[in-house]
């Protein structure tokens, strides 16, 4: 008996947030004030996501409240001094794995809810927020573990290579290699990448999607991608890797035969178009799902699976909604409002298994800054009816970069400048 009491007290001391679980579940504004709180928060989310009784309304509440707690807490709140920071650093590898596994569970649960018709827009948007917050937390913990940005990333592993925290692999797959029909979603390093990632009502962290083809005889790996600058192309994987990815996540369709057929048919279609028109399949600036004459990056994935299934496999099940209050910006880009299939939607697509996720820690701070800028800029556009003025002459150019530019960014991000107008997305 006394052992049980002692064990219970030890558990309560180690996980104070479990001490009053009902309070935790109904206190979205409770702060994460220590490393122990953070661990408890992650464990609690995992436990609640595993709850088979979670329904659509419960999903919205759970994810909105978890997001609120994660988002309103800063690492400097739960690791304010050198000692607690060392504790956090020591625990970072396990916390990153816990967060990653929890994100896999969130995907699974959302799709179970979708099967039952309970994955409402509110629920899926809240889930996207939690996935984004979890990924951000992993970024920060990984930076702490690797001692970035102080540590010069000379030995950085290439895209989809290396070990944790660079590469996180779904335990279900262990060692993996690319297969025909695999889908890669990624995040580029340009401002336009952030603009695409954050264009929908629910923010995402991905700006591009590519389909993989592996030659049976030579083993050569190619990607099929729709680029803003050049349209749809079939290119060696090396070209994809050269573009400078901040993040890259590998997905695999559950139906392997369908995925192989999808990649082969799409490859044939892109090459046939090029042979006939002496030009690439044009890019779809409108991001219209039903426009077969032009294709944008995630539409290429959709079209491939639609072709391979004679129109039966329509992606995605959970779409994004592009519906800002102030439509001037997206109108100028030519993007149409409404439901669409954005690269980030692959993340929630239950017919795909998430195999592995890779990130470049040397670009992470830059990526976070780009995200914050675009989110804030879109917010200003909605809130204050702000517009981008494109009537700015060259003579004025220096004025914009004058007092604030002064080369500060080039010092920190000089290796991989993000000022390219048309960097790959």
């Amino acid at each position: 008996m006394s052992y049980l009491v002692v064990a219970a007290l030890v558990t309560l001391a180690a996980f104070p947030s479990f001490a009053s679980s009902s309070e935790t579940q109904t206190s979205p504004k409770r702060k994460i004030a220590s490393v122990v709180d953070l661990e408890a928060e992650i464990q609690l989310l995992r436990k609640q996501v595993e709850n088979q009784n979670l329904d659509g309304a419960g999903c919205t509440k759970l994810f909105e409240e978890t997001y609120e707690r994660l988002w309103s807490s800063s690492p400097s709140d739960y690791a304010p001094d050198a000692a607690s920071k060392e504790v956090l650093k020591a625990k970072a590898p396990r916390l990153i794995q816990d967060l990653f596994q929890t994100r896999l569970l969130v995907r699974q649960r959302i799709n179970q809810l979708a099967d039952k018709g309970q994955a409402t827009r509110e629920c899926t948007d809240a889930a996207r927020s939690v996935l984004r917050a979890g990924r951000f937390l992993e970024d920060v913990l990984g930076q702490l573990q690797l001692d970035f940005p102080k540590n010069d990333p000379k030995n950085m592993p290439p895209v989809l290579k290396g070990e944790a925290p660079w590469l996180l692999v779904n335990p279900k797959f262990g060692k993996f290699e690319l297969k025909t029909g695999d889908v890669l979603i990624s995040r580029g390093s340009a401002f336009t990448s952030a603009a695409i990632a954050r264009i929908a009502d629910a923010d995402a962290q991905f700006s591009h999607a590519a389909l993989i083809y592996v030659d049976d005889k030579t083993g050569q790996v190619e990607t099929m991608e729709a680029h803003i600058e050049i349209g749809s192309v079939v290119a060696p994987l090396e070209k994809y890797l050269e573009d400078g990815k901040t993040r890259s996540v590998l997905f695999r369709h559950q139906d392997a035969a369908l995925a192989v057929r999808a990649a082969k048919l799409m490859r044939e279609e892109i090459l046939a178009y090029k042979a006939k028109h002496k030009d690439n399949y044009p890019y779809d600036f409108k991001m219209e799902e039903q426009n077969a004459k032009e294709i944008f990056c995630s539409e290429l994935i959709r079209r491939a699976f639609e072709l391979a299934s004679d129109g039966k496999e329509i992606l995605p099940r959970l779409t994004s909604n592009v519906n800002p209050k102030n439509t001037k910006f997206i109108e100028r880009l030519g993007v149409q409002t409404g439901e669409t299939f954005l690269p980030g939607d692959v993340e929630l697509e239950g017919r795909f298994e998430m195999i592995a996720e890779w990130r470049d820690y040397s670009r992470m701070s830059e990526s976070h800054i780009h995200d914050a800028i675009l989110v804030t800029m879109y917010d200003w556009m909605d809130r204050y009816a702000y517009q981008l003025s494109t009537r700015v002459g060259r003579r004025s150019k220096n004025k914009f970069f004058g007092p604030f530019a002064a080369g500060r960014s080039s010092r920190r991000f000089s290796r991989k400048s993000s000022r390219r107008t048309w960097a790959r997305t």
Partner: protein
Amino acid sequence: MGKNVIGTVTTLNRVSAILQNRLISEDEKQMKATGFPLTPREMSEKLEELRLEDLGKWNTKKSKAVLHHVLRAPN
């Protein structure tokens, strides 16, 4: 690709560069003080400070403003 798209993206890059420079400076300060970067919420707060500061300049001495030349509500 239309001129509208190129012009819009060019301006987007200009505005973003202005905001990025401000955030880098604030992020460096935060790193020195706490050892952690700014959170997204803190970044948005810093950007709002910049907007208000710049709006003040735009309303008094336009030449000192850097943001509101390219991003503002139409008159």
